[in-house]
């Protein structure tokens, strides 16, 4: 969300919103760092049982394809989010190239972030269908 905020502000870069752009970029970097630590803790401590469920269930691709891609694509989003505050130190209102760079980075963060979120939804559904499947087998 902060990356989208940077994108919109950078589209209308002026001296008046320069500090707001830098703040939004910093928010994006801090949020991704928090997601890295909190998500990483969850992934390392609570995901293994979910993984076992998914692999035994009808949607093993929820782990084999989506989780494997997500956990490594996250690093790409994270690096881009850490790059954003550096790029926004340029004077975007007077440097069209720097503005283009910031717009590109913000857009890439939003796109890869959405891909990571979407993969997360499929992984969650992989657990759900695995549980439903074991429940229905138990009921028979």
């Amino acid at each position: 969300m902060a990356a989208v905020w940077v994108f919109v502000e950078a589209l209308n870069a002026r001296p008046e919103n320069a500090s707001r752009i830098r703040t939004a970029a910093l928010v994006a970097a801090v949020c991704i760092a928090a997601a890295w630590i909190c998500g990483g803790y969850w992934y390392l401590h609570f995901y293994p049982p979910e993984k076992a469920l998914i692999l035994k269930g009808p949607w093993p691709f929820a782990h084999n394809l989506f989780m494997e891609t997500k956990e490594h694509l996250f690093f790409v989003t994270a690096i881009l989010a850490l790059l954003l505050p550096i790029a926004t130190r340029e004077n975007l209102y007077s440097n069209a190239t720097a503005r283009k760079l910031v717009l590109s980075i913000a857009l890439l963060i939003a796109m890869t972030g959405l891909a990571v979120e979407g993969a997360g939804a499929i992984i969650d559904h992989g657990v759900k269908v695995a549980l439903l499947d074991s429940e229905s087998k138990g009921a028979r």
Partner: protein
Amino acid sequence: MASAIDSQPLKLTAATAGFVLAAAITVLVNTALACTKDAYAPLKLFMKSISGHDWTTQGLFDLLLFVGLGFFFMRIRVAEKIDPNRLIRVLVGAVGIAALGLALWYAFF
């Protein structure tokens, strides 16, 4: 008053250019490392032995690589000499290759 419309294309500072190039390289190395450790189990085990989990080691490695390369490129001012528009294309291309590469790797291998 300066506006977004009347501004002209300009160069990037040594810090920005250096870290953009560092980000592009880190993103590609991250993808290559993910595929290599997936195909070569001893590497995955080695990475696991460093921090307790291969994912944690890879994250720390990416972070160190990005920061290290960023400061290195900034110091030697190499990225500054590259056309900024080309640098942007390199970054976008690297992210595209990384995303597609990871998805295709885990889909077919």
